């Protein structure tokens, strides 16, 4: 088990280092892209460009620049922005993380609760309308563009109805939990519901088909033969077994969302999270900020992937040998 964890950990480091090199190459080594010209502005003369190159260390060779950037990011932690000179990158990132986490964790709680509750219900019910309804819910979940759904929600809550039914909905934005918990909740409620709507459908569908699959396994037949009640079989055996799949699916979705997929939701609802920070810095080519946010994002994805693998290995010893 320990060697499995160690192996997984070294693979994680390898992937993270590769991603940092990849990001660096995309922004500095793509032919035709000159970061100095971006920083200096559209009509900069040759002298200004030279100055910019010298002051941002853009005249040094690529490997040296990469190492220097990594050193400032991870060792001395004083990487500064290209656009707001002198502004440190890491405090900006750490300031944005709570907003993204608030958004994703809140939405995740809603969709997990709804997904597991309705998923188990759908698996235990034999009513005829369940089957097509679940399929439609699942398909809607993967077919709705989140930013458009967000716009529709804004249209409903912020437009004409804002003076009557939705008077209590605050204007778009984010208030931190520590500043005002009630306002934090109100500001995030509709972003949560928007995000949760997309995922809940998928989770209901996956959980239901998993439970129905497990119900056909031999050990369930054994339980029945032993005289266990259908209720006990459903909750104690089938649902518990199926939750393993949900846990791994959740790990991946959660990592991907915190790691960047929440970007569109943040942009639409004006939440100043990591996604919004990334998007704003992409617009003005603020490479140090991009590097920091991408490293943070990939760390989350890689970490959740590794966690899922390890949890799986704990639950299912066969995996460890691979």
């Amino acid at each position, binding site marked *: 088990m320990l060697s499995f964890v160690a192996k997984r950990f070294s*693979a994680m480091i*390898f*992937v*993270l280092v*590769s*991603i940092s090199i*990849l*990001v660096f190459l*995309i*922004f500095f080594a*793509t*032919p*035709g*892209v000159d970061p100095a010209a*971006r920083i200096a502005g559209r009509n900069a003369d040759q002298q200004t460009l030279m100055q910019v190159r010298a002051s941002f260390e853009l005249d040094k060779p690529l490997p040296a620049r990469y190492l220097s950037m990594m050193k400032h990011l991870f060792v001395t932690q004083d990487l500064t922005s290209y656009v707001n000179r002198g502004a440190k990158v890491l405090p900006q990132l750490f300031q944005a993380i709570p907003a993204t986490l608030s958004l994703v964790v809140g939405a995740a709680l809603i969709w997990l609760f709804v997904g597991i509750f309705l998923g188990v219900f759908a698996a235990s019910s034999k009513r005829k309308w369940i*089957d097509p309804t679940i*399929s439609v819910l699942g*398909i*809607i979940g*993967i*077919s*709705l*563009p989140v*930013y*458009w759904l967000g*716009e*529709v929600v*804004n*249209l409903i809550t*912020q*437009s004409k109805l804002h003076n009557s039914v939705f008077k209590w909905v605050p204007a778009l934005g984010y208030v931190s939990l520590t500043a005002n918990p009630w306002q934090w909740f109100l500001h995030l409620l509709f972003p949560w519901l928007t995000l949760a709507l997309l995922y809940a459908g998928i989770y209901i*569908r996956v959980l*239901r*088909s998993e439970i*129905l*699959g497990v119900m*056909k396994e031999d050990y369930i037949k054994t339980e029945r033969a032993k005289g266990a009640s259908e209720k006990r079989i459903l909750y104690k055996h089938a649902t518990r077994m199926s939750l393993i799949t949900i846990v791994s699916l959740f790990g991946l979705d959660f990592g*991907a969302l915190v*790691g*960047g*997929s929440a*970007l*569109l939701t943040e*942009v639409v609802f004006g939440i100043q999270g990591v996604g919004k920070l*990334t*998007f704003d810095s*992409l*617009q003005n*080519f603020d490479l140090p900020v*991009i590097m920091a946010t*991408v490293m943070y*994002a*990939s760390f989350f*994805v*890689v970490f959740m*992937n590794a966690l899922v693998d390890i949890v799986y290995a704990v639950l299912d010893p066969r995996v460890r040998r691979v």
Partner: protein
Amino acid sequence: MSLNESASAIFSESPGKIALRTLARDKRSWISLSILGTIILLALFAPLYAHIIAKTDPFASTLNATITLHGKTISVLEPSTTGLGLGVTPIGPTWNIHKYFLGADGQGRDVMARLLYGSRNTLFIGTSAGLITIILSLLIGLIAGYRRGWVDAVLSRILDVIWAFPVYLLAISLSVVLLTSGLKIGFLHFGPGSMALPITIIGVVYIPYVARPIRGQVLAMREREFVRAAVGTGAKHSTIVFREILPNVMPAVLVFIPIMIALSMLTESALSFLSIGVQPPSASWGTIINDGLALLYTRPIVALAPGLMIVLTAAALNLYGDAVRDALDPKTRARGD
């Protein structure tokens, strides 16, 4: 039917034929195909609508045009009456097919005409990117799974890295950079406005999602008796790969096609919505939603209509994907999924 008869019925037909028949019997495939067919037809008729029915240029701004409706002359862009009185409010839906059926956008362009032209770009980019993903993934999966050893190790590590790179972040980073530099593939050079940029970007970022499962299948297939038998008879590598392994991974590949096209389409519209996908004056469903953002509270139809088209198309593709999956793998059907 006796056991003998049913057995002969099974063996007399190829799996492909059985799958096709199941698919043809499936209501879902007919519903989704007719939705997709209608949308494709509408896209094909875009020039006909713009030039003959509405007589409008969907790519040119017409800031001081007027139209005559019910005997009254109305200007297409009215000065705004709400808020500070700044900006303009474009004409709303007239529901008259000859002029501004769905109203105009902030530049006085006919939204219906742009919607139809936008469907061409979105469908084209989604389909090409989806197919590129599938073809490259199949290639990578076959090579990695069949050659094994260091080739597999290298390819798998590369896939791991792209997989761990959050997909939207990768697509957005690539788009931002390539929009300034353009893209060179061999002697081909694509400028910033080219459709080739989003197609290539979207086609590449999703490769790990398809290539990993295909590689796994090929790897498992290589251990099967019929492949070993082929190796034993001294068959060439190309024969083994194309005659023995490929036909057996094809069902998995086919299932991916509609799903990946839907996913690529959604990604294209997200990139275009962030204004780093299809570049103006060209339209796609995503760019029109972006145009409609400023008009959301005055002329919501500009953002609503293209969004509905995206949902409808993506849902139809995913529904078709479900039907294809069930037709190719009857076991999942029995599971009640």
